[in-house]
């Protein structure tokens, strides 16, 4: 197993959001996590990445055999966990090049590889930029500063390409994207697919899953996974909405 | 020097000044007297450097001034108090909620000595204005709202200067709003007559946990008036306070608002508008002290200066160590209309905690030429366009006033003032 979550409970400011999540993801699998607003989807991704505003109250998370919850956010990243943020933050004055170079070299150090020279690094950037058709000018600017919504999301996938994670969590990557941008972003994700890496796609809607086809679909509701099925569940949810799930779990 | 003359005046009339004062107050006065005598920083006392008369024996006019002078605002009724020079006149007694007290301070000192002693000077500013006030103040307004009480209408306090010779008046207000109580106080400063006046008015306000308090101060006096006013406020947890100081006309105005945010979740909104003309000097000095975590403050002061007027804004935001999650926003905007007007702005941040968001912005300039042109291109005359822009600039300060009738009245007065018309309060017998 690449990722194993056992009975995970987490809260923010004393309010319990995750109320016993169980989830296993194997190598090469694509999982979709769907659910109505406020069900805890983004909390789950933040907890996995190690955001300190969230407190894990009980449960375990194992990532490649390591206890993920004991690792600092940067250690999780270096171990191969990547979060594509729903709202990527702007960092004024810090150029994309410097930012990415620091990140890539940290990852290489972790793998006991030598740091890239400036030339090698720029070459790598050029190659990866094409995957998401990222405008060359964007990488000369400060991190996410003045980027449009679509540019920010493409920039996230570009970073994913640069860091080559084993597990990518795409948190509402489709929000704020028009149809062309959605296609470019999902094609980028698909190009990066390898037999040994896995993806969690967190989304509210079907449309992203038309492009990134999941092996397994989970429905998250009120902090628990209430239903797990194959990709056919996506169509069912699209057709019937979430109300029937709510009824099923006795609301 | 002049201050010495006032110190000797007190010494000569000590018995008269201390008549009715409890032991602790008499002692506090001696301490303040000493502090004044020792004061090294005389700049604060500059305002006293003219020879004004005082009224140590508190001789009263033969007629009740409250019957002669009234200041009414259409659309609301208030509980009305008049501080005529240095003495407070209350309206006849009426039914108030259980335990609520409002009366002249001199009466409160006699009737509720413990209550007055418990709060008096607890949060004083320790500066020359405080000491001068403590030595000489004989009267003022006392308001006490016990827990969870509220009044059905605002309290209106009119400070009126009236004499036929240079006159100084010193008064002290003590306002206690206990936990969960609510009050609104509207202070109107007026001056009547041709002579020189100086007033030193000091207001202490204690706002308990979860209590709400609004304090409006409107000055519409005359060129001969020097008005030194201090409001010191202390807020407990969850208290909400709004202050607004509006200076429409005066000679020399010094408004000092000192606020301690002493309880978590306390919120302060502090505002001011100054319209300067002639040789008027208007100074607003605010001191906001975030002593605990999680309190917030927003501040907005605006000046429009014409003629040879001078504006001074000093705003300090101080954040103590450990006062995390403080949010403080301070804005000062000024318009200089004439070649001889002068504006000085000193927005100050003093911050000793790291988890804070504090911002200040200050801008001084003129009306937006592009906006003027745009309006003119739509057929509006330049003078009307200027007036519209100036009033829009000024009205922003009124936005959060909680009493609609007061807001309407102020808008009208500001409009007339900006048009250069007479801007008295219509029903007010003082500014006619």
């Amino acid at each position: 197993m690449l990722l194993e979550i056992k009975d995970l409970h987490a809260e923010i400011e004393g309010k319990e959001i995750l109320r016993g999540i169980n989830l296993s993801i194997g190598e090469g699998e694509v999982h979709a996590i769907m659910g109505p607003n406020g069900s805890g989807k983004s909390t789950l991704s933040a907890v996995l990445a190690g955001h300190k505003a969230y407190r894990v109250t009980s449960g375990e998370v194992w990532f490649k055999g390591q206890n993920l919850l004991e690792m600092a956010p940067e250690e999780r990243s270096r171990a191969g966990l990547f979060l594509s943020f729903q709202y990527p933050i702007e960092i004024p004055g810090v150029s994309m090049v410097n930012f990415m170079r620091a990140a890539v070299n940290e990852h290489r150090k972790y793998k006991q590889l030598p740091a890239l020279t400036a030339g090698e690094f720029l070459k790598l950037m050029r190659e990866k930029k094409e995957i998401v058709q990222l405008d060359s000018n964007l990488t000369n600017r400060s991190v996410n500063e003045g980027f449009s919504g679509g540019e920010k999301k493409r920039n996230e996938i570009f970073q994913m390409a640069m860091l080559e994670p084993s597990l990518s969590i795409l948190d509402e990557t489709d929000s704020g994207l028009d149809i062309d941008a959605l296609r470019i972003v999902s094609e980028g994700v698909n190009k990066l697919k390898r037999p040994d890496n896995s993806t969690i796609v967190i989304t509210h809607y079907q449309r992203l899953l038309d492009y990134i086809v999941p092996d397994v679909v989970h429905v998250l509701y009120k902090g628990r996974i209430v239903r797990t099925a194959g990709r056919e569940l996506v169509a069912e949810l699209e057709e019937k909405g979430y109300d029937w799930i709510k009824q099923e779990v006795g609301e | 020097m002049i201050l010495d003359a006032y110190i000797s005046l007190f010494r000569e009339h000590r018995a008269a000044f201390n008549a009715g004062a409890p032991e602790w107050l008499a002692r506090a006065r001696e301490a303040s007297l000493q502090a004044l005598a020792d004061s090294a920083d005389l700049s604060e006392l500059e305002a006293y450097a003219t020879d004004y008369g005082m009224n140590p024996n508190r001789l009263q006019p033969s007629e009740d001034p409250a019957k002669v002078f009234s200041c009414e605002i259409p659309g609301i009724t208030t509980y009305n108090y008049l501080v005529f020079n240095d003495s407070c006149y209350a309206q006849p007694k009426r039914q108030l909620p259980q335990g609520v007290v409002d009366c002249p301070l001199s009466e409160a000192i006699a009737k509720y000595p413990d209550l007055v002693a418990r709060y008096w000077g607890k949060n004083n500013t320790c500066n020359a204005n405080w000491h001068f006030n403590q030595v000489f103040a004989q009267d003022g307004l006392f308001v006490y709202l016990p827990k969870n009480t509220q009044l059905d209408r605002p309290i209106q306090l009119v400070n009126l200067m009236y004499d036929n010779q240079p006159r100084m008046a010193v008064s002290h207000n003590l306002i206690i709003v206990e936990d969960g109580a609510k009050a609104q106080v509207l202070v109107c400063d007026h001056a009547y007559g041709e002579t020189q006046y100086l007033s030193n008015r000091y207001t202490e306000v204690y706002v308990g946990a979860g209590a709400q308090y609004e304090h409006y101060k409107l000055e519409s006096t005359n060129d001969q008036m020097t008005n030194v006013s201090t409001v010191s406020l202390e807020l407990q947890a969850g208290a909400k306070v709004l202050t607004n100081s509006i200076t429409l006309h005066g000679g020399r105005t010094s408004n000092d608002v000192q606020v301690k945010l002493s309880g978590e979740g306390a919120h302060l909104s502090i505002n001011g508008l100054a319209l300067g003309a002639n040789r008027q000097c208007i100074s607003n000095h605010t001191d906001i002290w975030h002593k605990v975590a999680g309190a917030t403050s927003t501040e907005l002061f605006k000046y429009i200066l014409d003629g040879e007027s001078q504006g001074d804004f000093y705003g300090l935001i101080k954040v103590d160590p450990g006062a995390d999650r403080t949010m403080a926003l301070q804005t000062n905007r000024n318009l200089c209309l004439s070649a001889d007007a002068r504006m000085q702005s000193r927005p100050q941040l003093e911050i000793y905690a790291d988890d804070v968001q504090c911002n200040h912005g200050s801008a001084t300039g003129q009306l937006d030429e592009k906006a003027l042109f745009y309006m003119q291109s739509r057929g509006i005359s330049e003078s009307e366009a200027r007036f519209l822009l100036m009033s829009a600039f000024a009205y922003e300060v009124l936005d959060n006033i909680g009493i609609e009738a007061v807001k309407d009245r102020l808008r009208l007065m500001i409009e007339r003032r900006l048009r250069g018309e007479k801007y008295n309060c219509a029903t007010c017998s003082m500014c006619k």
Partner: protein
Amino acid sequence: MKKTGQKKLLNDLSNSEYKYGFSTDVDTDIFPMGLDESVVRAISAKKHEPQWLLDFRLKAYHKWLTMEHPAWAHLQIPEIDFQKISYYAAPRKKQAGDGQQIDPELVDTFNKLGIPLEEQKRLSGMAVDAVMDSTSVKTTYKEELSKLGVIFCSIGEAVAEYPDLVQKYLGSVVSYADNFYAALNSAVFSDGSFVYIPKGVRCPMELSTYFRINAMGTGQFERTLIVADDDSYVSYLEGCTAPMRDENQLHAAIVEIVVLDRAEVKYSTVQNWYPGDKDGKGGIYNFVTKRALCQGESSKVFWTQVETGSAITWKYPGCVLKGDNSVGEFYSVAFTNNYQQADTGTKMIHLGKNTRSRIVSKGISAGKSQNAYRGLVKVGKNADGARNFSQCDSLLIGKSCGAHTFPVIDVQNPTAVLEHEASTSKINEDQLFYCNQRGISTEDAVGLIVGGFTKEVLNKLPMEFAVEAQKLLQISLEGSVG
């Protein structure tokens, strides 16, 4: 500072403690401690000064005696015993510039600092005046510059060789009575640089003075005077270091800049005096008066400073914008850590018509330090059309430091437009988390974010200096996150 110098600097900077903490064992000619009229006379005699300069010093000394130590800054300054300082120290074997032999120890010292003085190794594109304690050790590129009529030499030399120029401008921008430390400096100033750029000359290389305090128990009181004649241009750099010592040493300098019609002067400082140790012991007291007078029409001055050193910093490089259409700009990064204190900012005095000024100040406080911006923007009655924009941002790292902003804006002209914005906050947690998520450690992330925060200012420095300043900031940050 291309190639050799740059490489050397980077090497020197690569380890985390204060880099320039060594002292040089040279034979020093040092005055006994104490200050009285005879000391002032002795300094003047030592330098074979003309009578007018001695008179200037004595006038300043007597004024100083009547002045009080300034107390208005947001600083805790331990009482300074002015009788426990030596007012003159010079490396004894020093032979003034120009091809003559310099003490190899001194050459070695400046080599360690990344400032080679030998002709064959000198930095390309940059002329250097190296000042150790009270005297100038060596000025490079002098002949090349003199062909253009540019005068670049120590102020002592200038007094001897260009007395008229010095007498005309010395004290014309910062009067000897300006403030306590200006009076002290005017009485006892030792060496420093003098620059004169003739009419119409664009100085082809950066001019640079490198200040070094070496001797124990001494103060450094250098004096810099720059005169840019009509239509001229010069970029001037100043760097400073001192050995690590437990005692506090006083540095009270004056920089005066006179800018005539349409001339332009860029003055950049990377101040890295020894800041004291982790417990606040030792370090330099840096009490400096710097001012530029934009006397000519359309003249321009740009101040850029990166302040990372000194136990206490007290300086307000200012511009008097007297000429019509003159421009003053001020860019500052002040970083304080441990027990450092800084009270720094600028004064922009608008006197001429259509004068413009711009202020960008970035303060970073860490450890137990206190960091204050203090500024004055004043628009005089006749300064029609004056414009100012000020932006002052403070970043707090840690719970025990302080960040303060004390601007004064004084407007006496209705056509002026002034804007001041300030913000104070800590490093944004979401930015840190974003960096962490990409595998960057918190310490490196803070470095990146601080780099971004200060970029607007560092970009104003000449390239070589910007690299050095960036490194200095990163080094200063080390240990501040935790």
